[in-house]
């Protein structure tokens, strides 16, 4: 069950114009740097990107925005990218902003075979417009929930810390974030990892994403792992 491919170029070679992608990461933490670079190089157009954030101007998904490869973003927070905000306000970029938990859960729903899930997030706000809602009893009181559909993405592109040739993935610290739910939710899931090991080297008790969800895996190169807000304290 060897799912290894040579590199990012090979991993993304069948991603065509108009594809719907899930892209893992939170801010710049745990983003699939190699695959984003390969997509920029390939020049794939009219992408729909499901990603919590839109990167910054010169890193992450920001690189794809700069080259105008993105038709639509589905995100929860895009405050760090001024170019994004400009394209959005000018109408060049289609944007769907949805609550972060809804975003994560719609990814996971695809991986759990839930056609839809219920969440109270967004009830009574513009997020609820046009959506089916329903009352359920919660802690003895009626509470309103929105029905939100599982995402239907062609590809999920995620970044893990370690992976094995079977596609089993282990994440590090808060870089797990959207990578796991998206890895589960893609029709085709591509994983780039900092360290690729032979099957059998990872402890089966410590796998975060079982290999059954992963279709292609490769060891990435030259990770920059840029820090967005370097906050420190004095010794």
């Amino acid at each position, binding site marked *: 069950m060897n799912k290894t491919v040579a590199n990012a170029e090979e991993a993304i070679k069948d991603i065509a114009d108009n594809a719907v992608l899930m892209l893992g990461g939170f801010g710049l933490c745990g983003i699939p740097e190699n695959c984003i670079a390969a997509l920029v190089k390939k020049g794939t157009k009219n992408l729909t990107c499901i990603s919590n954030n839109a990167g910054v101007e010169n890193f992450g998904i920001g690189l794809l925005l700069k080259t105008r490869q993105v038709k639509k973003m589905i995100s929860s927070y895009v405050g760090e990218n001024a170019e994004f905000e400009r394209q959005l306000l000018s109408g060049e970029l289609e944007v769907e902003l949805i609550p972060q938990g809804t975003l994560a859960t719609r990814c996971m729903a695809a991986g759990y075979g839930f056609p839809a899930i219920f969440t109270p997030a967004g009830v009574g706000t513009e*997020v609820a417009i046009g959506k089916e809602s329903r009352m359920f009893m919660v802690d003895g009181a009626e509470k309103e929930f929105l029905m939100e559909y599982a995402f239907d993405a062609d590809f999920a592109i995620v970044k893990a810390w370690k992976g094995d040739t079977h596609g089993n993935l282990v994440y590090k610290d808060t870089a797990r974030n959207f990578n796991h739910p998206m890895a589960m939710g893609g029709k085709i899931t591509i994983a780039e990892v900092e360290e690729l090991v032979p099957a059998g080297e990872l402890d089966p008790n410590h796998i975060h994403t079982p290999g059954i969800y992963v279709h292609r895996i490769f060891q990435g190169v030259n990770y920059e*792992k840029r820090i967005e807000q370097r906050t420190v304290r004095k010794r």
Partner: protein
Amino acid sequence: MLDKIGIAKRIAKEIQDGFYVNLGIGIPTLVANYIPKGMNVVLQSENGLLGMGPFPFEGEENADLINAGKQTITTVDGSAFFDSAASFGMIRARKVHLTILGAMEVSENGDIANWKIPGKMVKGMGGAMDLVASAKNIIVAMQHVNKEGESKLLTKCELPLTGVRCVKKIVTELAVLDVTPQGFRLLERAPGVSVEQIKNATQGRLIIEGEIPEMVID
């Protein structure tokens, strides 16, 4: 009148032993610095961490370890990492006892607006809509009035809503207020602030009953 640190200090007094707490960006983040020593409190960061610690020492920043504000952080003993779907699962399941976040506007029935100014600012709601829709207890840290001197405690929010009927308590530079079915109930005045000042700064229905004590902040 309180500064940001004063607001953070006053909110810290609302935290109880054994609480799991989610802190939003801005003033709420400062609250962590004023949780009484010895109190058992675990901070949840919705990007996937229970047990958030202080900023790292210089040179020890870890790009894989950030909070929901994208700041480099550390962990404390007993921490646990998880994915974003699991994180909002525990939020929806109301395992987080208290959410503290900022707001642009709050209305007298507890509606909150903090994510969008149509035509001007579109950063997105992030996790705020999920948090306010689910948290058992929500405290808002905010300025009582905007730069133009207009009240942000309103009869009805004018900006697009983040959540409805969810805010329980508000701490501003002027006052502490509960949100009740009858409107904003004034609980405490900031040091040196008069009830009259608070009245003038509050557009929504304000309930003032009896003597309003001045806040005690250490």
